[in-house]
């Protein structure tokens, strides 16, 4: 008897994770990369996971990588305090935000 809609050999292949890297465009992206590169890799990971074509083990790795990237990106955007400085002729930097505040607002 044939198993109707389940291909055992394919499943074995899946589990062994033989055609792992065929869908990957970028290699590992780290904190060294730019924000754009990190977001691009994150987008790629999400689309790979959504397609569901990678093995479960690989999915786990991708998920882990995605969580790390997402955290790095969030961290990069989390700083909200701006610095506004003026360069003096002697090379010193002085806060300029007050100067602007007082006459601009």
């Amino acid at each position, binding site marked *: *008897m044939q*198993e109707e809609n*389940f291909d*055992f050999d394919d*499943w*074995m292949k899946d*589990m062994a994770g033989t055609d792992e890297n065929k869908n990957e465009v970028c290699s590992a992206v780290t904190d060294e990369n*730019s*924000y*754009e590169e990190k*977001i691009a890799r*994150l*987008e790629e*990971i*999400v689309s790979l*996971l*959504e397609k*569901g074509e990678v093995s*479960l*083990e690989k*999915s*786990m790795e991708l*998920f*882990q990588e*995605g*969580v*790390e990237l*997402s*955290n790095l*990106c*969030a961290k*990069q*955007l*989390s*700083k*909200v*305090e*701006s*610095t*506004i*400085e*003026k*360069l003096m002729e002697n090379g010193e*930097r002085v806060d*300029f*935000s007050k*100067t*602007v505040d007082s*006459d*601009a607002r």
Partner: protein
Amino acid sequence: MTKPSAVADVMTVGEFNRRINLLFEQDPEMQRARVQGEISDFKRYPSGHSYFTLKDDEAAVSCVLFRGSAGRVNFSPQSGMKVIAVGKPNVYDKTGRFQFIVSGMEQAGLGDLYLAFEQLKKKLAAEGLFAQERKLAIPYIPQRIVAITSEAGAVIRDIIHVLERRYPGFNLLLIPVPVQGKGAELQIAAAIRQANAENLGDVIIVGRGGGSLEDLQAFNEEIVARAIAESQIPVISAVGHETDYTIVDFVSDLRAPTPSAAAELAVPHKARLLERQEQLSSALELSVLRRLESERKRLRQLRERPVLMQAAEFVAPQRRQLDFLRQQLLSEMRRLPREARNQLLPLQHRLSRPLEQKHARESKKLELLSSRLVNIIRSRTATQRSLFERLLVSLDALSPLAILARGYNLTYTEDKQLISSVSEVTRGDTISVRLQDGSLLCDVREIILEAGK
């Protein structure tokens, strides 16, 4: 009627002014005078009339260009332009003001500044300084923006205002410079060079508000153009208001029409970035949760597959068919009359023997087949069971990952085995605890067994 002689040659002021105009009118050449000079103080009023002064090195004359005549001038007159004006002299009755009423105008060569601008533009273009392939890319999120402009005035305030709105958390360094007047170009160029030499930022905005060609002169100087061309830091130019183009605009890596626009080009919209990051983050979690759910479903379905049921059920239909045929044969024979049956008896024997032999053969074949099937199923279920177990381990290892973020953690032995019971460790063991953002390496100091577990 006679007038007193003392009064006879006395004119009213109005008459005097009119007589002067009559004198002018007697000279046809003066009625169509062509005068060359440079326009200055050009002012156009809402009425449509324009007033300006026409001057050269030695002299100046007030001019008026009435609305009706202005329509016949096919260029837009501006201060600094050299023109040939056609018109007639006139003394205004009411004020006695002498003026040149201009009825037509043509450009007499362009102003010196304009010529210098065109020449420099041509020269730098020929050197390839404006070439698209020379342009540096503006960083997506700059670490520090260097603004080279006047510290007073609206420009720096506009820039700061836009940066605060779009990307809170920016870093801005202002290098204050004069943006017009003698020597301004030297300081602007020096500031650009200093930003590069001291690596003060990763994008430069250089600019000023709008103004006349004279006001913008510093941004049309070769020294500034060269400093920008040599800059390793990408430069966004922001000179004037939209319509004003300067040499700096051509040579910069990106030209912004206004200082506010330059700030917009320098940083992305942070709120949108955050939105996208959050979208991706939840899509990531969702995709994994979905995957886990579908793997669980797959496991459930595998466990319930008919292939795992009794193999005998597959043999039964064939066996039933065989029994049915046999019964049919026997009942057919019973219905025959005795003698015919007797006649048929040897025939029946002849018939039934191969049939029985066939039955035996088929049965044997079926049994062989079913035992093979059972064997195959056994070995496959064994493989599947071990795969199920691997899968379950994966599932168990994976699902907590999604909730590590909520403070759960995974504990592993030194050889990366997941620990679920205190019985798996002994005092002094080194274990690693995995949290959402890293791992802790811990030594087991004591093992506390909870009562009843």
